[in-house]
């Protein structure tokens, strides 16, 4: 009796051979504990060494192996073949990103969006080293813990129809990251970040489709982060309307 196999339809893009992406079909051995990444590694080792794709930790913490598996954004290291067996599996590069080669996408836009939200503790009054660390009890950590679990896998950007249409949109992961820092009690940069995210291409462009949170492998729930950011921004706006003159002290 022949060992069970499974068919993978893998997207290829090799502009030096063909100008547009196309599909190659591969038959890989099937075992119950195999994930899509195992199949891709088998293809690369045994069938077609020219296949290009990203992966690293193979255990769902590095965020490298995000791809479209049967038209849904998944981590290939965490997607078991047995979910689809015996039907075939379609593997494509992550949606809404330019394709560099085969399953490798250009993530420079994402990296830029991450840094624009200033994802670091901002202080208006720095403690000196002698004053010790900024202490934070566990209850305060719990406030933002969920939003700090992002592994930058970009599945949320692949799932977001707003980002698909508007590449300017800052996007779920970056906005969730901004919210994570705004919730951090050690941070004093809410006003600074508000100017960055409370803009037309930031939180206001989100229409709460919610797919970003559905596909997130770490349950960060970026959709909730963005809507809560809207509430925070609106509350701040209403307060400033009631007290129109904000007093700012200029420190030179």
């Amino acid at each position, binding site marked *: 009796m022949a060992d069970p196999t499974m068919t993978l339809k893998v997207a290829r893009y090799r502009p030096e051979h063909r100008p547009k992406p196309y599909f190659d079909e591969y038959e890989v051995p099937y075992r119950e504990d195999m994930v899509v990444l195992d199949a891709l590694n088998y293809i690369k080792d045994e069938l077609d060494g020219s296949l290009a794709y990203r992966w690293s930790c193979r255990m769902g913490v590095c965020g490298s192996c995000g791809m479209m598996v049967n038209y849904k954004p998944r981590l290939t290291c965490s997607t078991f073949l047995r979910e689809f067996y015996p039907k075939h599996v379609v593997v494509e590069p992550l949606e809404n990103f330019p394709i560099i080669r085969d399953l490798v996408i250009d993530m420079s836009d994402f990296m*830029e969006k991450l840094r624009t939200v200033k994802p670091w503790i901002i202080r208006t009054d720095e403690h000196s080293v002698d004053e010790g660390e900024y202490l934070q009890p566990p209850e305060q950590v719990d406030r933002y813990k969920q939003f700090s679990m992002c592994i930058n896998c970009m599945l949320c950007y692949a799932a977001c129809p707003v980002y698909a249409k508007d590449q300017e949109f800052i996007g779920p992961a970056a906005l969730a990251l901004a919210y994570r820092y705004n919730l951090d009690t050690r941070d004093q940069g809410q006003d600074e970040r508000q100017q960055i995210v409370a803009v037309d291409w930031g939180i206001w462009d989100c229409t*709460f489709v919610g797919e970003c949170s559905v596909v997130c492998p770490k349950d960060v729930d970026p959709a909730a982060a963005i809507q809560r950011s809207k509430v925070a921004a609106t509350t701040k706006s209403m307060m400033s309307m009631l007290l129109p003159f904000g007093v700012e002290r200029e420190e030179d």
Partner: protein
Amino acid sequence: MKRTEAPPRYPVYVPKVSRIWWLRTGPFRRFAAREITSMFAAIFSVGMLLFLFALSRGRAAYDGFLHWLKLPWVIALSAVILGAVLYHTATWFRLTTRIIVIRLGGRTVPTVVIAAGLVAALLGASALVAYFHIWF
């Protein structure tokens, strides 16, 4: 913000976004349905405005409007509006439970409780409005 990175020095393929992306998957279709219910909210507003307009023009116009409400096609339209608005209510409550975070002494109020509160508000407000509308 626009990209400030220099473009890569190799050809990249940028796939086109389908114009009917919102029909392609179940979740996107449900999203589109949810957004469309807002049209029925607007239709209700217009209907309410017409009701008040008829009221302002005197008894004859008002009775004419009431008569119009009883026409079969208007009842059908009302049924459709009611269905759409109730779908809006269900989706709106679900969305609200994901946004509202209430902390009581270090613990968070569970979403079920918030949902129950919203349903209680719906029933309570409906009872109050019905009372004033019909019997007061």
